[in-house]
């Protein structure tokens, strides 16, 4: 490249850069006015449906959470760390958990509130709910945690909730982070029971995030508790990963941009809801209602609903669904609304139909089905049907592969490979505790679109 050419080139670049900067400034100005809006989109797996008989189609209601604004104080957090200090935690696990807890607390600000509850056979609140001021004293208290005793998990969560409740009325993001490495052996221990506790806690807008360490805890219980309370689920094999997980979780908690999110999907009279995929919700007549306790910044959350569309003529176009999202904006402290609508047209041309495929919806649908296949596999292997479990996983992998190849979708192909490998491992070594935990955690994270993993 010659000197003159280079010079000419650089002027072009600088001009271009100027344009970009200008557009960025105007762009941010535009973005600033709109920063706090959650965008709601409603899509179908194909925008053009085959004309003719009544048919089933997939609806995807997507919530695009905006990034948290930089210049406005983030919403205050009311955090309760509930740590397992039973005998099995002894060693690296408890040390790393302590380090991770301390690391997490140092990231909280003065406006935040935190408490630390430890449990073994009994439950102790070692740091009652307090502001993020006197950190040093708290750190010393946490350092003194020693492992020993049984696992009163239910009591621990209950005590954590009691600490949260001290500031329940105020406008906080309420969160319990539960860490456990063993089977709950004092207090209720059925996954269903903990699920009910989670269901009660979310009514108070308290979410419980569960972190399972090692391979001896009850992943079903931990997943149920988190699922019913809309928290995150993590599985770490050793204590070494704990600081990373705590950091990721805290990243989520400190990044909440919407709270108490209710989604109401209204279908026209001739469109019938069939099934909600992967999430818990309620079908009431022609309405589908869903609830999420919070949205994190830059997160995309969605719900998948199977609906039947009535018989139709080619060329016709109908409204399929309307979604209304109502949520608390923690920055403006106001209740906000967002709406999305979806239409579908009908055609007798199969090519046109095929071309209209929304790969995004198809992918998420398939991945959710895959998550459900994983849960089915767990159920089967629990009943001792290892063969059928492997079969279910392999079938799911094959379908993912087929559809992935059809649409040339990397994510689906990757997941297909991962599931196939796992199926092979289970086939040769049986359903190990670790495999079961991975399946349970991954399927939950998929269904819940968990950001940090």
């Amino acid at each position, binding site marked *: 490249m010659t000197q003159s050419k280079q010079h000419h080139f650089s002027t072009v670049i600088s001009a271009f850069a100027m344009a970009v900067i200008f557009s960025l400034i105007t762009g941010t100005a535009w973005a600033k006015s709109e920063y706090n809006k959650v965008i709601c989109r409603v899509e179908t797996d194909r925008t053009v449906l085959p004309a003719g008989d009544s048919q089933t189609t997939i609806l995807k209601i997507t919530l695009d959470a905006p990034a948290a604004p930089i210049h406005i104080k983030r919403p205050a957090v009311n955090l309760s760390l509930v740590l397992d200090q039973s005998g099995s935690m002894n060693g690296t696990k408890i040390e790393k958990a302590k380090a991770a807890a301390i690391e997490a607390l140092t990231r909280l600000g003065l406006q935040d509130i935190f408490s630390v509850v430890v449990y073994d*056979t*009994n439950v102790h609140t070692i740091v009652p709910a307090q502001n993020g001021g006197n950190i040093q004293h708290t750190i010393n208290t946490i350092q003194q945690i020693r492992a020993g005793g049984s696992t*009163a998990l239910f009591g621990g969560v*209950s005590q954590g909730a009691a600490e949260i409740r001290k500031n329940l009325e105020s406008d906080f993001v309420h969160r319990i982070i539960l860490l456990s490495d063993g089977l709950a052996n004092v207090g*209720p221990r059925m996954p269903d029971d903990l699920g*009910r*506790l989670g269901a009660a806690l979310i009514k108070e807008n308290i979410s419980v995030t569960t972190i399972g360490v090692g391979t001896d805890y009850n992943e079903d219980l931990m997943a149920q508790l988190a699922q019913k309370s809309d928290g995150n689920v993590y599985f770490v094999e050793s204590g070494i990963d704990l600081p990373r997980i705590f950091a990721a979780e805290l990243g989520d908690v400190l990044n909440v941009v919407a709270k108490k999110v209710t989604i109401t999907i209204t279908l026209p009279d001739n469109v019938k809801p*069939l099934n909600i995929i992967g999430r818990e*919700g309620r079908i009431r007549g022609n309405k589908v209602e869903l609830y999420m306790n919070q949205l994190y910044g830059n997160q995309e959350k969605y719900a998948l609903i199977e609906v039947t569309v009535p018989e139709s003529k080619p060329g016709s176009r109908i409204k399929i669904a309307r979604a209304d999202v109502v949520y608390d904006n923690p920055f403006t402290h106001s209740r906000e609304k967002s709406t999305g609508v979806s239409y579908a047209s009908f055609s007798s041309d199969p090519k046109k139909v095929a071309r209209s495929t929304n790969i995004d919806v198809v992918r998420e649908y398939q991945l959710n089905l895959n998550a459900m296949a994983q849960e089915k596999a767990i159920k089967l292997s629990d009943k001792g049907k290892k063969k059928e479990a492997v079969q279910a996983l392999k079938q799911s992998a094959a379908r993912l592969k087929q559809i992935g190849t059809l649409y040339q979708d990397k994510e689906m192909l990757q997941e297909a490979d991962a599931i196939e490998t796992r199926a092979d491992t289970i086939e040769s070594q049986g359903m190990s505790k670790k495999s079961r935990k991975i399946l349970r955690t991954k399927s939950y994270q998929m269904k819940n679109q968990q950001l940090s993993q």
Partner: protein
Amino acid sequence: MVQGMKSRRSIIVFWALFLVPTLIIALIALQLLSHEQERINQSAINALSQRAKAVAQTIHITIETIQDNLQQSLLDIDQNRLETTLLIWEETNPLVRNIFIHRNQKLEYPVKGMESTSEERRFMERYDALFSGRVKFDFNSAPAKDFSVGSENKLQQLKKIGTFYTETAKYELVPKERRAASRKQLLSLSRVEKKKADRPSQAMGLNKPEQKLINRSGWIPWFSENRLHLLGWAQRQEKGAVYGIELELMSLLSRLIVDLPQISEQGTALVIMDGNGNFVHQSGRMIADKGAKPVKIISISDLLPHWRIAVFIDDRGFGATKGFLYVSMLLLGIFIVAIISGGVLLTRLTLSNMKDARQKTSFVSSVSHELKTPLTSIRMYAELLLSKRVTNEDKIQTYLSTIVNESGRLTRLINNVLDFGKLEQGSKKYQLENIDVDRFLKQIIQTHSIRIKSQNIEIKTLIEKGDYTIKTDKDALEQVTLNLLDNALKYAGQGKFLLFVLKKEIDFVILKICDDGPGIPKKHQDRIFEKFYRIDNSLTSQQPGSGLGLSIAKQIMNDLKGDLVFEPATPNGSCFIIRIKNHGTD
């Protein structure tokens, strides 16, 4: 021997008299102590049981209040907005798990099929018997609670809670205000509907006079799949809808256990168990598993059928009260040890006194015997000479020399006894003078040669060349030497020779007297210098003696800053070594 047996018997009697009462006292004390400990343990159990009862009462009153409040709230719902109101309850109230409306023998809500959630489907399955009409809603109720006079009723209940607080305040570790606050929070959840809804519904009742207001309500503890569920129902009008809620037991439990007092004592635990014996909540650090046996079981409340509180306590739990037992046992132990050691001391004193007495008796008889023998000879020969019947000059000479010899022996014996007394009192006086031990030894040998030779013993001397003049007490030295010589002749009479060795050391002259007799058995070697000690201490022993000779000799040598030691000779016989200290020649 007879005397020994007697004394042993008296010791046994003494010990029996002494030990038996001691042991009896100890046993009685132990029994009393363990009784007392038992009593203390029982009171620990009782105290813990009291706490368990207090917990059970708290749970009962809380649940009762919640149920009453919810029942009241159910009845207060505006009947025109029944479903909406109940749905809002379900969505927002953590105590409400499910809701239902049952009208005309049919379930109006939840609806079967797609429109119900999986939870609602399970709920309908659970209560199928009830919803399908097989079981009546009021099958378990005593006359339904009448809430028309409810306000008074409630007041009473609140009062009850108040008194309960003051009763249990001493057991509470959780600050009272906090407890009260969190419980108020819980109870406020159960007061859902305000009274204001009452008016329009009453008005509605008036509009339709055929529908009588009955205000019935109740709670059903329901067992399904071996688990307890609580269903509250209400019916305002006869033939009107029966509606109600299912209580979220886990939420209730979660809030209840936070308020229960913590137990900090070691080795104790209060455990709330559900109908299946599962541990629902534990307070206290004792590791109580399902196999452990509780000391007491208290049923919680008829509102939670089959739920119990188990009281556990183990040895560590009693440990706090065991201090009493340990201290008393320690005191008792010290008492017994003191008594026994006193007894041992007394026994030892008695034994040594008895030994002394025995030795003295044997000493007196030995000495009398010793005195008698030479005296008899002297008297016999003197009487023979006095009768003048012996005319042979040689015989007279022999008799006279025997008399002299025997009186010499008598003198030595008496000297020994006298010296023994002096030595015991420490009043023996020594007169130091210069003597030549060589000459002194030769003189003694010469004086006693006839006595020695008459026993067919050869005299050997081994004297190193040198000057043996030293300063010491000549008479004392002579007494020591003669004692040893007498012993040698007495006990080694069958021997062939007597060896006298003389040599010099710095400040000392060593005089060694050795025989080739039978020697001294090893076990006696250590004790031959004790006073009164004799190898054969019986009067019938072959050789008479007082048991004083060696003891006196050793003490004299020690007084003179020298020493007397025994050394076995090879292959047989004994040597006595006299170390004579030179007190400085003039």
